[in-house]
């Protein structure tokens, strides 16, 4: 039975191997050559100055693929063209491994000069010492924080310090199929849905869709678990005035059980009333193939629907079902990870780049994202893009997570878990809130 021993051993070993192997050599593209930092520290030059002096090379790690990946590459190419003294080199990492790689690489001193972080992930990175604060370097680079949407910006400020430059927000919005809405008599002359912004109004809207359209058509395409129904719940919870599910000091769980249950109950009824197809295997495809009247997801879907042939759709903020406008959302931000040298020239160049990307948000908006600078939203280039202006105002009503280091863990290990049960009608909304409170507390005290 030697064989089984070696297999036992292999089990253990491969586990430990797996665990320790990620300690090192993740430096693909991470080791930018040491910068020619001294030589000519040309002080007080304007940020976009195309003057002489040494070239600064910045390594930039991103987690974008598909349309996002292409748009980011376009931005980088444009930037390199217009800034002869700075070269940004893009390394695309797989999204699923991005944060793990970033954290380990920075821990080893092999991290990039510039990186991307979600706003919701930022506190965790700050806590681990992966991200540096930006206030001094922002002054040097001439960044005007006032030019950013303050709702997005404030979500990246932790303990009064700036840690990131937001380049977008990607909130949860609603899409509708114009043809199906017209068939149901719910499309106004302005091409927008006829929909009363209230709890009953939205319900009536869906009920009409269900009655008027063939039974094969799904009134409301939504996944039955995890992200998107959670985002809808978060939006409604926030519309009711719910203020996250962790306390202000981030130390304890604070689920507003009454509001949470009311929001969960409303979403649950969308499932039990048959508006949402039960266990829909692919709700994106359902909507994309014209068999669903409305759907809700993040703004990134705009680019997908646009590239679908002969697909007439519209986009709008999710309806104000309860007391105040609010929705779920997150932002991509540009961060300056901790590096060995923390070279001020590089840091300055990096922030010039970050601010430039934010200022050229109309390119980034091609995937569907809302730019982080109001001036971009006002610009003609942005207005020329269809659909985006229909939901750009949502940027100011996105309800972000509080800066807890455990946002993602709370979402994955508590929120998804119990809310999924509510959607499957296996747990009552009230019970789920009790469990959620316990679950969040458990994650926070671990």
């Amino acid at each position, binding site marked *: *039975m030697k*064989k*089984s*021993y070696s*297999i*036992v051993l292999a*089990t*253990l*070993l491969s*586990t*430990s*191997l797996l*665990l*320790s*192997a*990620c*300690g090192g050599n993740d430096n693909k593209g991470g080791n930018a050559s040491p910068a020619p930092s001294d030589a000519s520290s040309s002080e007080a030059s304007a940020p976009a100055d195309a003057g002489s002096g040494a070239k600064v090379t910045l390594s930039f790690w991103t987690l974008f693929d598909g349309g996002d990946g292409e748009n980011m590459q376009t931005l980088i190419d444009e930037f390199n063209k217009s800034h002869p003294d700075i070269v940004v080199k893009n390394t695309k990492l797989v999204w699923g491994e991005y944060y*793990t790689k970033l*954290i*380990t690489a*920075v*821990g*080893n001193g092999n991290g990039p000069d510039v990186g991307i972080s979600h706003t919701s992930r930022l506190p965790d990175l700050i806590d*681990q*010492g*992966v991200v540096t604060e930006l206030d001094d370097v922002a002054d040097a680079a001439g960044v005007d924080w006032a030019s950013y949407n303050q709702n997005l910006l404030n979500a990246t400020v932790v303990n009064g310090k700036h840690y990131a430059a937001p380049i977008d927000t990607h909130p949860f919005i609603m899409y509708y199929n114009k043809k199906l809405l017209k068939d149901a008599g719910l499309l106004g002359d302005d091409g927008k849905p006829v929909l009363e912004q209230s709890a009953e109004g939205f319900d009536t809207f869906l009920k009409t869709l269900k009655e008027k359209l063939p039974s094969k058509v799904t009134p409301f395409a939504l996944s*039955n*678990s995890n992200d998107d129904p959670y985002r809808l719940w978060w939006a409604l919870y926030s519309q009711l005035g719910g203020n996250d599910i962790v306390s202000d000091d981030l130390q304890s769980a604070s689920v507003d059980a009454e509001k949470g249950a009311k929001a969960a109950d409303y979403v649950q009824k969308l499932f039990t009333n048959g508006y949402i*197809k*039960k*266990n*829909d*295997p692919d709700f994106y495809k359902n909507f994309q193939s014209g068999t669903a009247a409305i759907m809700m997801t993040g703004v990134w879907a705009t680019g997908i629907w646009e590239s679908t042939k002969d697909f007439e759709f519209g986009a709008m903020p999710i309806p104000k079902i309860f007391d105040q406008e609010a929705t779920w959302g997150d932002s991509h931000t540009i961060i300056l990870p901790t590096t060995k040298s923390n070279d001020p020239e590089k840091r300055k160049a990096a922030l010039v780049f970050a601010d430039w990307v934010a200022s050229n948000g109309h390119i980034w908006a091609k995937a569907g994202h809302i730019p982080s600078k109001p001036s971009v939203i006002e610009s003609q280039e942005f207005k020329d893009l269809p659909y985006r202006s229909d939901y750009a105002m949502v940027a100011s009503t996105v309800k972000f997570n509080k800066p807890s280091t455990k946002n*993602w*863990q709370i979402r*994955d*290990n508590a929120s998804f*878990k*119990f809310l*999924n*049960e509510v959607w*499957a009608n*296996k747990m009552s909304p009230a019970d789920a809130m009790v469990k959620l409170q316990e679950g969040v507390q458990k994650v926070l005290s*671990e």
Partner: protein
Amino acid sequence: MRMNKWRADVQAFLFLLPFLLVYVGFTFWPMIKGVQMTFYKWTLIKKMQYVGWDNYRRMLQDQEMWDALWHSTIFVLLTTPTMLVLAIMLAMIANRKSRLQKFYRSVFFLPSVLSVAVASFLGLFVFQPYTGLVNSVLHLLGVLSDQREIFWLTETNLAWIAISLITLWWTVGFNFILYLSAMQDIPDEIYEAARLDGANDRQVFWRITLPYLSPITKTITMLQIIASFKVFLQIYIITGGGPLDQTRPIIQLIYQTGFRKNDLGYAATMSYMLFAILLVLSIIQYVINNRKGANA
């Protein structure tokens, strides 16, 4: 003579050296390191803090850990006996003299060449509601009315069935080959003698084939138990451990703890727990085998 032997040993060692270096560096050393980890709060970037036996204490009180361990055990209990029966059945079919012999052999083995991701995604398509193969066939046969759907992947019990069936289909090939070769090692004279004595098919199977297969059965059982305790990827892809973590195996919990919760120390502790369990199982099996061997 002695000199020659010594030289042969050195030569052998030199040949082994490249492997040994890799083995020690990437297998043995991490294993030692892993033990050290269990006594620390250890994050991905090695923010370390010595915590003594805390990880072990925490583990024993961790309901999630026990649940996950139980789920892995359920998987072992579901798949091991069924795997044995299925593998023997397929081997019997493929061992019969028939024109389709070669066809059977390749068809039964074929799924084993797939990678776990491919096998799992195929399984996912088969068990998916609305468009999946199983539900479509059931609709076609009229077993399931058009208005109803069976949600294989979101009901805990059904999910276990789906996961087990996919795993059986995917991994039975290897065990089938083991049984087939063992069957071919059974001398024909014994069968002939039995037939001459007037034994029927059933008697031949229970009195001759099965006893002769018992050594390989033991091996397969052990391999199967160990492999099943390590189940992770197919469940991760098919149900993601859901619903409500009801199908989450221990390895998934270890993975999530280590890489999602950034808590490598505790993840290592659970890994060693699993290691200890598998070690004990192997020892039990070893002892039983040896005792029987001595008696025979």
